């Protein structure tokens, strides 16, 4: 299976362990990622906070490029990138001449069709039965807290994915891998996202709540499908422990890490050894 791929900046930057994980895991499932030619940044939080039009134009350019490359399905592993692409599709579908205006701004035809997929949807597209059949090492020792964060399920009228208060899709994938999952309270709470550098207090407070709630419900790891969630829960975990005088030692996996491990790939192949918190 070939699929259009919009990595976004994080996966080509400090979250390159996520890209390594995706390529190893999806490669083992015979999914080839075809990167959009000359993609640009989606503008992220900075654009939607400071310049509404720019926050539509930048993802619109990527939609147009994906179209030009002939991709009917586009996989965006970062939920913010993914939500911004879907937001443009929705805005274009709502009319008001926006499609023409955006096409003029980005100097390419913006059509706004094509399917945008997040990581969970990629596994759903492959098929959970097929996934289950491919499992070589069932994840018997895993008891995971599935963490969706904000933008996989919100805003629901933009992303149309899963239940925005009680999502279950990641649990379903993990069940196919033979892993256990826990019920907990912080599945869809925010980790502080892009405030990592500019408002560290916010991130440490929110990450602490998420990590300690996962631990209190008996999870031995947290699973994410977002580069920023991983940064705030993994890279900042030592700072959280220091601030709150608590030893957490919670391993944070990308969903593709666990799928890859169940398929028999090694931690090194998946980049799990490059995380900050690793299994003792």
């Amino acid at each position, binding site marked *: 299976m070939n699929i259009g791929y919009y990595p976004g*900046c994080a996966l*080509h930057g400090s979250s390159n362990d996520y890209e390594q994980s995706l390529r190893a895991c999806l490669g083992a499932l015979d999914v080839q990622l075809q990167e959009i030619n000359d*993609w640009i940044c989606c503008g992220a939080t*900075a654009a939607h*906070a400071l*310049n509404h039009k720019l926050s539509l134009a930048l993802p619109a*350019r990527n939609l147009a490029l994906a179209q030009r490359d002939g991709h009917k399905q586009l996989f965006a592993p970062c939920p913010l990138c993914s939500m911004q692409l879907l937001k443009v599709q929705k805005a274009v579908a709502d009319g008001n001449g926006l499609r023409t205006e955006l096409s003029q701004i980005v*100097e390419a035809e913006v059509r706004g069709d094509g399917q945008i997929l997040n990581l969970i949807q990629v596994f759903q597209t492959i098929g959970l039965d097929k996934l289950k059949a491919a499992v070589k090492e069932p994840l018997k020792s895993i008891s995971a807290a599935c963490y969706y964060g904000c933008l996989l399920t919100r*805003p629901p009228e933009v992303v149309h994915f899963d239940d925005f208060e009680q999502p279950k899709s990641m649990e379903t994938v993990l069940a196919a891998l033979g892993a256990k999952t826990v019920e907990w309270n912080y599945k869809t709470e925010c980790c502080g996202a892009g405030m990592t550098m500019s408002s560290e207090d*916010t991130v440490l407070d929110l990450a602490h709540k998420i990590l300690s709630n996962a631990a209190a419900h008996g999870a031995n790891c947290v699973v994410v499908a977002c580069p920023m969630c991983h940064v705030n829960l993994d890279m900042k975990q030592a700072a959280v422990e220091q601030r709150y005088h608590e030893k957490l030692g919670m391993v944070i996996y990308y969903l593709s890490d666990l799928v890859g491990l169940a398929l028999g790939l090694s931690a090194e192949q998946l980049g799990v050894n490059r995380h900050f918190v690793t299994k003792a």
Partner: protein
Amino acid sequence: MQGNPGAQSNPESYPIEVLAHTQLANCYQCGKCTAGCPVAARMDLAPNQLIRTVQLGQTTTALRSRAIWECVSCQTCSTRCPKEVDCAAVMDALREISLAEGMVATSEQPVVAFQQAFLDNIRRNGRLAELELIAQFKTAVFFRTGRPAFLFKDAALAPQMGKRKKLHLLPGKARDRKVVGRIFAKCSKGPKE
């Protein structure tokens, strides 16, 4: 803030409802937005209070608030609103206007400096160059706040990131950066047009 600086402003002059595509009059102050907001405790005006402030025409107070920059854009408020007020989009609109009007609260300079450095970075490179962003952000905060300690904050993370091959001295840039510059230029008219 002293007195009631918002009383003289004309809310109609700020296109908040247009930018946010939402009807502020629909809010009946149930407080569900604030109840679910992960950072309400950090805000000077809670989300429902911000909406009320704008409803009452005291838009300047909202534009000068710290709250609009504390918001993490998690979308919980908008998702749970029983009256379909898009509170998160109102936050975006308030931020955009606050910046354009030079009304950013002094204490929120680091957040704003980060967002501005981020946009400037992608305008030039097409894609984010992280190390350059960090340098740019720290310098900007230092000049705005005069706090040298900020320059070295998180510096201890650098070698740990390097060890994990997470630092890129030569990040990939978009090839057609001229088109990115033109997109920025065409989108830079400001919220009032």
